[in-house]
């Protein structure tokens, strides 16, 4: 199963995400989820960044919050809405919004 997961909150979704297993897991950070990619809590980066190598963050949702692409962890690829559409259709066979 190739599963693409949208993470839209900073705090709430790790529990469910911890339990999901996929042959290929992608995490797309959107809305407040982008803080996982940009923000350290007490000096530590989000543990979600260790879950998979397929990490994405939505450019529009980074910029709206006054953040810059340079604030994004190097492991995370910054994408736009068009890129998200391509991820949905080309990289994953199921998608989920947590």
């Amino acid at each position, binding site marked *: *199963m190739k599963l693409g997961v949208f993470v839209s909150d900073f705090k709430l979704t790790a529990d469910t995400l911890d339990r999901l297993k996929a042959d290929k897991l992608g995490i797309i950070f959107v809305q407040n989820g982008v803080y996982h990619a940009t923000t350290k809590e007490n000096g530590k980066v989000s543990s979600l960044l260790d879950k998979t190598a397929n990490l994405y963050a939505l450019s529009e949702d980074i910029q709206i919050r006054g953040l810059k692409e340079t604030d994004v962890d190097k492991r995370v690829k910054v994408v736009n809405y068009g890129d998200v559409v391509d991820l949905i259709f080309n990289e994953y066979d199921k998608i989920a919004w947590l």
Partner: protein
Amino acid sequence: MGDVKLAFIVQRPQYKGETSRLAITHAIAYQTVEILLEDGDTVTPKLCFVGEGVLGLQKGQKAMDLYGITSTESHMKNTLLVDLDVLVCKEDLAKYGIPEDAMPDAEDMGADKKIQVVPFSEIQKVIEDSKHVLFF
């Protein structure tokens, strides 16, 4: 196209928000979807409760008496009555101290189907076996 299997995963508790209830009513709608599909096409959801989603499923709910709305318990009974598979995560019931026999049934309405309390691994399998997964 035949049958399309869906995994409905409810991860939020009932009553404060509407999403977890809408998961149940959308799943029940499988019963009438054939009127919009070609002959032989069907949709089969499996309704799974995980995490905080297992909260608010217990028997003895008084939603109609106190707030004038249909209880989750009543929705669950209807779900069983229309032969939907309902899976509740065993580990999460244990985590919140909810006994398995607190789950409602619809025997009084004549339903044979019962809620299945299963390990999360079985819910993971439902997710894998379904064409689409919908989190509520």
